[in-house]
């Protein structure tokens, strides 16, 4: 059914379709609408879940951890400070290999306190062992949540999946979303969770035991391997989704007008939409420019990026996060990928934009493309700074 849905509605409706047993959350802007919608669905009997509103994000993540260890499907959502407050638990969920799905309504980190969108929060949990997907628009947010559970629950993966949805830009913005009418079809796509190891009085196991130096590294290695294996599973999940529901937004990456491109803009999240519009305009003026969208930030799609960039001369990385004392985060990973694959001659310019909700307009992007033509291997350059008196 075609509907005009706020991003938060699209997310909550996607979550409704997978029928999680236990949902737990703590409110934080801009995640609030998601958990409000889910609460209402439960209150109206449209979603048969145990919904536990807890006293903190730390407990929200801990509740879904405990529930997930019992072998049931679980979901939580947060943003910003809430995400870094639950980071300790996310490491733990990943380490215990529990398939929790978590939405992050991406938002800046304090100080100064700022409720608006950027991706610094997501970058702060980069190494937790959670799979990190990034949605471009409300339709993808809807579809990606259904795929996320399929990826998380794959027996070869068994890792938490974080679905990043830009705060306000998507969560509070209405777009046309085609929703799935048949919950049976979703059940077919996503069979019931069947965990080999769970908390069960008839078959007791001990979870979260002490890993001494003799075993800790092997445990981390298994997690590392599972993350690598998940690449294949993410691709399959996207392909199968396309076959069943007709929607495809890319697998690990997506590309736009890349066939003859000598310049490529790399980014993730909602800004991709603006970049695509700008690229259309730039192509009219004769520039051979394309877009590479990172859909899976972890696992990092190295092979796919390499294939996509084979014939490119200039790369512009636009990111809404920064590593103070170093520069960009995504840009560094792109450079590393190119270097390892003997493609270090490609010029990579990394720019920081849109922190704390600063708008990124098509004009910003035209200007950036012109600027990048003059620059060589810059990194961590802030774009659009006001001149402060």
């Amino acid at each position, binding site marked *: 059914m075609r509907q005009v849905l706020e991003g938060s509605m699209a997310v909550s409706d996607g979550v409704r379709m997978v029928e999680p047993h236990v949902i*737990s959350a703590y409110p934080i802007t801009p995640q609030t609408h998601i958990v409000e919608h889910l609460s209402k669905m439960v209150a109206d009997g449209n979603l048969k879940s145990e919904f536990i509103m*807890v006293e903190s994000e730390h407990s929200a993540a801990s509740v879904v951890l405990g529930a997930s260890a*019992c072998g049931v499907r679980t979901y939580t959502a947060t943003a910003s400070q809430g995400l870094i407050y639950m980071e300790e638990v996310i490491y733990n969920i990943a380490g215990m290999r529990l398939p929790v799905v978590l939405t992050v309504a991406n938002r800046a980190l304090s100080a100064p306190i700022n409720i608006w969108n950027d991706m610094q929060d997501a970058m702060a949990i980069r190494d937790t062992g959670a799979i990190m997907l990034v949605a471009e628009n409300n339709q993808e947010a809807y579809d990606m949540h259904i795929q996320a559970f399929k990826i998380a629950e794959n027996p070869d993966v068994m890792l938490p999946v974080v679905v990043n949805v830009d705060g306000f830009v998507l969560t509070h913005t209405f777009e046309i979303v085609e929703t799935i009418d048949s919950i049976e079809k979703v059940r077919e796509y996503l069979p019931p969770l069947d965990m080999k190891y769970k908390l069960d*009085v008839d078959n007791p196991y001990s979870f979260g035991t002490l890993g001494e130096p003799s*075993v800790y590294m092997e445990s981390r290695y298994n997690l590392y391997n599972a993350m690598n294996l998940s690449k294949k599973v993410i691709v399959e999940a996207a392909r199968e989704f396309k076959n069943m529901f007709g929607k495809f937004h890319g697998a690990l990456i997506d590309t736009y007008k890349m066939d003859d491109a000598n310049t490529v803009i790399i980014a993730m999240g909602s800004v991709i939409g603006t970049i695509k519009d700008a690229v259309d305009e730039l192509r009219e003026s004769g520039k051979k420019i394309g877009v590479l969208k990172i859909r899976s930030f972890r696992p990092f799609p190295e092979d796919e990026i390499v294939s996509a960039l084979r014939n490119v001369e200039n790369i512009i990385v636009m990111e809404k996060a920064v590593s103070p004392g170093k520069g960009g985060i995504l840009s560094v990973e792109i450079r590393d990928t190119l270097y390892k694959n003997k493609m270090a001659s490609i010029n990579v310019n990394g720019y920081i934009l849109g922190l704390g909700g600063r708008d990124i307009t098509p004009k910003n992007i035209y200007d950036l493309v012109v600027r990048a033509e003059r620059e060589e291997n810059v990194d961590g350059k802030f774009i659009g700074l006001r001149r402060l008196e």
Partner: protein
Amino acid sequence: MLTKEETHNGIFTMGHTACSGCAQSMSVKLIMEVLGKNTIAATSTGCLEVFSTRYPESSWRIPWIHSLFENSAAVASGIEAALKITGKKDGITVLGQGGDGGTADIGIQALSGMFERNQDILYICYDNGAYMNTGYQRSGLTPLNAYTTTSPSGKESFGNSRPKKYMPEIAMAHRIPYTAVASAGYPLDLQKKVKKAKSIKGAKYLQVDVPCVPGWKYEPRYSVKLAKLAVQTGLYPLFEAEYDKIISVKKISRKVPVEEYLKLQGRFKHLFKDEAGKAEIEKIQNIADENIARYALI
């Protein structure tokens, strides 16, 4: 009383690596005899987790999970919710457990949340009065004037400068259906309280006084003796409460001066050096006397 089968149910098995004389491991065994196999336990980081589940070994013959230091009440909440939604809750006890630090300090927020939601969970705090697992640092439940490695005695200090926090009363302030305080020194009383807690639906809080050989610095043979003395001095009142009302107290049969309790423990030995120490012991006696009056222990 328990049957022979219950007493030997082997749910908390031998072979763990607790110190000799550890009152916590003793209490856990007693508690698990009552709770039985239809129990799922969420345990905080601490001695209990370290000495009972060194991978690949485990002393637990029930489903057991350790996540983090401060979240066992929230993990237990998730377990309870999962059992409820899948129709498996009936007949299963969900147990949250932690030490005094994991309960009353870093874990108090998650615990308060669980109480306030009145989830059907028994939470047990094993109170040994400091962070023993990390080497005897003070916690919010460290008693007045106890030496710990972060509240040492010295020229300017008699040890921990504050009396212990009244955690059971904090539990009662949540108006949960059952709060109880027990002691490793009184096993039957402990088991009776666990049995009662098991039979009540909703959130339950049980705090157990568990003397710690290396932390309190005494001979292992004194664990039970010290636990009993803590009760008989009035320093560790044992009681039961329903909602905000105390419904029973364990009466003191023979009131013992606090010195008898303090002098057996290295953590209080600095109080026995001079006149100033004597005055500090007097303060501890006052705490005991206040407890005796407040809880009508005599």
